[in-house]
């Protein structure tokens, strides 16, 4: 049984107790994330200890939604992308509780977000994963995972759909299995 679980944000999670050290991100989590999930605006998932009981302390969270990308023209695009907006997945927020920094929680959240984005794109289409970094330091974090700033110094970074493929798969299910795909 694995140590941590990724769950859809629900009443079982201790939203009020979550502190990442960045107020805007904490406020979104406390006040808006659940409403957005219920309305289908975006989906927030949390990382908790697998054996935690409600109210479960939240070690970190991330929010995914759809975004439409529009450009006219697309200079140098493969085979020419349409003028119509094309879909992509947006990782709008990712945060780790401040007392759990430096334990690889951010990496595990990001790997999970990447896998879910890849699944979404294989099912419904999309050109890649867009990420909005909260600040320069966060942008550097994403850069290390291969995300490319769309302009030098930009806080919006991008990873094309093809780059979401590969790597070990994160298991699904109530307990998680020991099965690994390497």
């Amino acid at each position: 049984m694995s140590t941590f679980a990724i769950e859809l944000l629900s009443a079982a999670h201790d939203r009020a107790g979550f502190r990442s050290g960045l107020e805007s991100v904490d406020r979104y989590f406390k006040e808006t994330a659940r409403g957005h999930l219920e309305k289908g605006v975006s989906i927030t998932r949390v990382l908790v200890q697998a054996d935690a009981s409600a109210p479960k302390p939240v070690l970190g969270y991330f929010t995914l939604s759809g975004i439409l990308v529009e450009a006219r023209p697309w200079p140098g695009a493969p085979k020419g992308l349409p003028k119509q907006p094309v879909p992509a997945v947006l990782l709008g927020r990712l945060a780790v509780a401040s007392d759990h920094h430096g334990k690889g929680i951010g990496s595990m959240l990001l790997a999970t977000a990447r896998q879910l984005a890849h699944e979404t794109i294989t099912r419904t289409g999309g050109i890649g994963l867009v990420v909005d970094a909260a600040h320069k330091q966060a942008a550097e974090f994403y850069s290390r995972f291969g995300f490319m700033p769309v302009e030098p110094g930009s806080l919006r970074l991008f990873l094309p759909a093809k780059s979401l493929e590969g790597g070990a798969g994160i298991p699904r299910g109530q307990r998680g299995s020991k099965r690994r795909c390497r």
Partner: protein
Amino acid sequence: MMQAATMATKGSTKKSKRGRPAGPAKKRINTRFPEALAEKIEYAAALRGVAIASFIQEAVAERADQVIEAESRWQLTRDEAAAVAGLLAKPPKPTRKMLEAAKLASRHVHIRD
């Protein structure tokens, strides 16, 4: 020191004071501004010759549109489009750090939904 300011006023403003955006202002949002900012807003509104409420409403509406837009639609500039197109043409391989993260997550995390 803080000074109270009111962003919207009650009642219909259809044939309203000059400069006020059309449509009834029904919802009141009370917020406090630092004194220096409140004075700056009053001065800027006076320069434009519009009511303070309308000055604030216009500025805030524009900012709100930007924020909402940024989370649902991404209009690329020419340079951004070229960068994205370049990445699509030559997608980078997952970095070692990403592969390590996936391995770590595959060992320690399971997805419950």
